[in-house]
């Protein structure tokens, strides 16, 4: 066994142990903290699978932003945990559930082991599209060109989720702002962190978006880092979340899919159909779309984490 194999096996065991902890932990908070650790480890696994783009997404969204969402939810739901334990399933039912889940896992493991090697692949098609777009990162090319329709619908899903979250607001708060209010005197260390980290993070986020054309990175990863930076200045209460009826906020939220759709429709006129790009202009157009998608993601993720408005609108 080589060192690398030992490392892989250790990493897999660790991932499973932490995952097991998030299931068996007694308190929700302890489970959620385990989930943050799990996300960190999972991004290491993705690096080992040579999927650096996915590792970046997992690090930023899977561990970072989801972690913050779940930690604040667990803190607010602490009082409800004791009543819920009354509804625990009995031991026989749990045993049955465990057996069913073990069978499912075993079946999937068999599929994994029986999978042909090399398996079926769409890589040649993706490579062909890569050549047409002039990009260097095949994943960005798949996201924005080869499977562009999926990506656009996924942006629409994000907006639907924001609408869903906002519509949970009580009537009297509609048009107000979510999250805590800005304060004049902040806790020193946190404000310091946010003031120093946010500019650096914006640089890194834009860098990851920009290199996404040719290297691992792209709109999702860059946007998620920008979103995290906005969230950190809101958590430090240096800035306040905008009112949900603010026009600029709504425009930013829809900018990504609207630009995507507009250029897609333009494809009918200047290229070979919906969501296609004219030869020679593919790369600038893709970067143009991605810039707006980055902005939209940077605005959407914090809005999803902050939840529905919690204050009445200012008169």
């Amino acid at each position: 066994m080589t060192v690398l194999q030992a490392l892989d096996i250790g990493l897999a065991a660790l991932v499973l142990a932490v995952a097991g902890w998030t299931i068996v932990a007694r308190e929700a908070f302890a489970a959620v903290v385990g989930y943050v650790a799990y996300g960190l480890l999972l991004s290491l696994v993705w690096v080992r699978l040579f999927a650096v783009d996915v590792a970046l997404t997992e690090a930023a969204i899977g561990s970072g932003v989801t972690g913050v969402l779940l930690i604040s939810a667990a803190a607010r739901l602490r009082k409800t945990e004791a009543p819920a334990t009354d509804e625990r399933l009995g031991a026989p039912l749990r045993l049955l559930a465990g057996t069913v889940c073990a069978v499912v896992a075993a079946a999937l493991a068999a599929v994994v082991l029986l999978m042909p090697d090399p398996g079926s692949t769409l890589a040649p098609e993706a490579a062909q599209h890569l050549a047409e777009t002039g990009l260097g990162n095949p994943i960005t090319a798949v996201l924005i060109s080869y499977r562009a329709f999926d990506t656009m619908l996924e942006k629409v899903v994000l907006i639907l989720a924001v609408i869903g979250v906002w519509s949970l607001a009580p009537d009297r708060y509609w048009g107000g702002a979510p999250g805590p209010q800005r304060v004049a005197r902040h806790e020193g260390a946190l404000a310091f962190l946010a003031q120093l980290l946010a500019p650096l993070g914006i640089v890194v986020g834009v860098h990851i978006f920009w290199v996404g054309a040719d290297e691992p990175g792209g709109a999702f990863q860059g946007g998620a880092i920008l979103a995290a930076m906005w969230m950190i200045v809101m958590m430090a209460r240096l800035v306040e979340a905008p009112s949900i009826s603010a026009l600029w906020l709504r425009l930013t939220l829809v900018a990504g899919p609207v630009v995507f759709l507009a250029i897609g429709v333009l494809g009918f006129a200047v290229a070979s159909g919906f969501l296609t790009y004219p030869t020679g202009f593919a790369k600038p157009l893709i970067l143009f779309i991605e810039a707006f998608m980055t902005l939209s993601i940077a605005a959407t993720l914090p809005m999803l984490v902050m939840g529905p408005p919690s204050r009445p609108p200012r008169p």
Partner: protein
Amino acid sequence: MSTIADVFTVVAICTGSFFFMAGTVGLLRFPDALTRLHALTKADNLGLGLIVLGLLPQADGMLGALKLIAVWALVQLAGATVAQLIAHALLRKRPPT
């Protein structure tokens, strides 16, 4: 030349790993949260710092080295702030007896 760089890398990374181990031992063995926090910050600063230092000779080009240093600086900033915040939270919960 490259042998000297390799020896440097090995020494720095071994020392860095030692600090990670020390941090873990402290986190597990120290009696209360504030002393555990002390152990944690040592691993954060020195452990990662030495590993980054050891990897610098192996880095490819200026940008790679710059990124390594940026990673260290960011973790440094995060570690220092989080130590402050956690200490604050601890003191708030348990006023000095």
